[in-house]
C-alpha cells in the first residue's frame, strides 16, 4: 500500500545521474539524433528476434553509461499491473479483431492466434526497450544539454518562422517540472489519505468509483501547477526575459569521432532490427 504513494522514486524522467561515462560525454545533438533513430526503429520493428536484439542492446547501454540498471527497472515497475491487464485483454480479444495467423484456441468470442501472442510479446518488449532507452537518455544528459541539443537540431526550422527557442524552453520547463509535480502529487495523496480518502484500492472494474477517487488529486494538482506557473512568470518577467530576443550561446558543441560513431552504431542497430525477418 505504501508503495502507491512513492511516485518520485519511480519517476526516472528528468533525473540526471552524472557518472562521466562515454555516453554522458557524447555531443547532445548526436545523442538525441541517435535516440530518435532507435525509437523509430523500435516503433516499426515487430519481429521477435529483432526486438530481442534491441532489448539486448538497450540492456548493454546501462553498463556502457555506468548507470545501475535498477534505474531503468524502476521505470517499468509501476506499469506492470497495467501491462498485465492490457496483455490479457489483447490476448483474448485481439485475435478476433485482426485477421491472419494460426488460430490456437477459439471459444465464443475469445480467439487466441499466433498474431495476438506476437502482439502481446512484442508490445511488452517494445515497452521495456522504450523505457530503458529514454531512461538512459535522461539519466546521462542534463536537461540543459537536452534542450541545447534539441534547439540545434530544430535550428533549420527557424527559417520557417517556427519559434525554436521558445519551443525548446517549453520542453525544458515541462521536463524540469515533472519531478516537482510528482512530489506535490505525493504530498496531496498522503494528505487526502490521512483524511480517510481511499484510492487505488477500489476494484478495477468499478470504473465510476475509481474515476471519482481521482478528482481530489487531479484538480488540486492543476491548481498547484498553475500557482507555480504564476510564480515562474513573475520571476522571469522581473528579470526582463524576452522570448524573441537575439541570444548568444553559452555552450558550443563540436562533434568528435565518438559522436559520428554513435550515429553510425544506431543506424546499424536499426538496420539489423528491421533486417531480421523473424
Amino acid at each position, binding site marked *: 500500500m505504501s508503495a502507491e504513494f512513492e*511516485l518520485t522514486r519511480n*519517476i526516472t*524522467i528528468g533525473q540526471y545521474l552524472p557518472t562521466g561515462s562515454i555516453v554522458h560525454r557524447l555531443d547532445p545533438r548526436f545523442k538525441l539524433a541517435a535516440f530518435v533513430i532507435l525509437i523509430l526503429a523500435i*516503433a516499426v520493428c515487430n519481429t521477435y528476434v529483432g526486438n530481442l536484439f534491441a532489448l539486448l542492446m538497450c540492456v548493454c547501454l546501462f553498463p556502457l553509461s555506468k548507470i545501475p540498471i535498477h534505474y531503468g527497472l524502476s521505470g517499468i515497475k*509501476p*506499469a506492470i499491473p*497495467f*501491462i498485465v*491487464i*492490457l496483455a490479457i*485483454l*489483447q490476448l483474448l*480479444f485481439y485475435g478476433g*479483431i485482426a485477421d491472419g495467423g494460426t488460430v490456437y484456441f477459439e471459444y465464443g468470442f475469445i480467439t487466441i492466434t499466433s498474431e495476438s501472442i506476437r*502482439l502481446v510479446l512484442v*508490445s*511488452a518488449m*517494445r*515497452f521495456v526497450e*522504450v523505457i530503458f532507452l529514454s531512461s538512459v537518455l535522461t539519466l546521462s544528459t542534463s536537461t540543459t544539454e537536452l534542450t541545447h541539443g534539441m534547439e540545434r537540431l530544430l535550428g533549420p526550422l527557424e527559417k520557417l518562422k517556427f*519559434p525554436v527557442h*521558445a*519551443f525548446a*524552453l*517549453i*520542453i*525544458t*520547463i*515541462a*521536463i*524540469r*517540472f*515533472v519531478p516537482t*509535480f*510528482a512530489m506535490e*502529487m505525493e504530498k496531496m495523496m498522503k494528505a487526502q489519505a490521512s483524511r480517510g480518502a481511499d484510492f487505488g484500492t477500489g476494484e478495477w472494474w468499478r*470504473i465510476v468509483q*475509481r*474515476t471519482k477517487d*481521482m*478528482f481530489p*488529486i*487531479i*484538480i488540486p*494538482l*492543476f*491548481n498547484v*501547477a*498553475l*500557482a507555480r*506557473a*504564476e510564480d*515562474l*512568470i*513573475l520571476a*522571469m*518577467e522581473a528579470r526582463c*526575459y524576452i*522570448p*524573441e530576443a537575439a541570444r548568444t550561446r553559452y555552450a558550443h558543441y563540436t562533434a568528435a569521432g565518438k559522436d559520428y560513431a554513435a550515429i553510425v552504431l544506431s543506424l546499424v542497430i536499426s538496420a539489423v532490427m528491421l533486417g531480421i525477418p523473424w
Partner: protein
Amino acid sequence: MEKGLTVRRIVIAGVLGAIAILLGVTRLGYIPVPTAAGNATILHIPAVIGGIMEGWGVGMIIGLIFGVSSFLNATVPLFKDPLVAILPRLFIGVTAYLTYVGLKNVNQYVAIGVAGFVGSMTNTLLVLGMAVVRGYMAVGVAATVAITSGLPEAIVSVIVTLAVVAAWKKLGTSGRQKSKISGDL
C-alpha cells in the same frame, strides 16, 4: 491579447505539458476500460485547459507534448503509430479554444464546460477516425469505443476543466498574485 509566444504562454504550456507527461508516466491519467482501445484517458485535459487559458497556440503545443509522450509510453500498436498518437492530439486545444471564444460572451462557465466537452470529443473522434483510416479498427468497434470510453472521458473533462479554469480565474483576487505585466485575463 498579445501575439506570439509571451513569457506567460511559454510557462503555462511548459507546466501543463509537465502534468500531461506526469499523468502518463505514472499511469494515473488512465482509467482501464475493457475495450479495444485499452483505456479511457484524462491526459488530453491539460491541452484543453491550455487552449482555453492561453489560446490555440499553447493548446497545440501541449497537444504535441501529450501526443509524443503517449507515443513513447504506448503499449498497444495503435498508439505506436505517430499518425494516430500525435497528429490528432494537435487539434484538442484548438477546438477547445475556438469553442470557448465562440461562447464566451454567452456565459463564461457554460463556455468553459462546453469547451471541455468539445476538446475531449475532438480527441476521441480524431484518434478513432485515424485508427479506422489506418486500418487498426473496424468502424463498428471504433463507434463502441467512442461511446464506452469517449463519453466518460468527456464528462470527466468537463468537470476538471470547469473546476480548474474557474479557480484559476479567481487567482490573484485573493492571496497569491498574478503577474501584472502579462496577466490580462
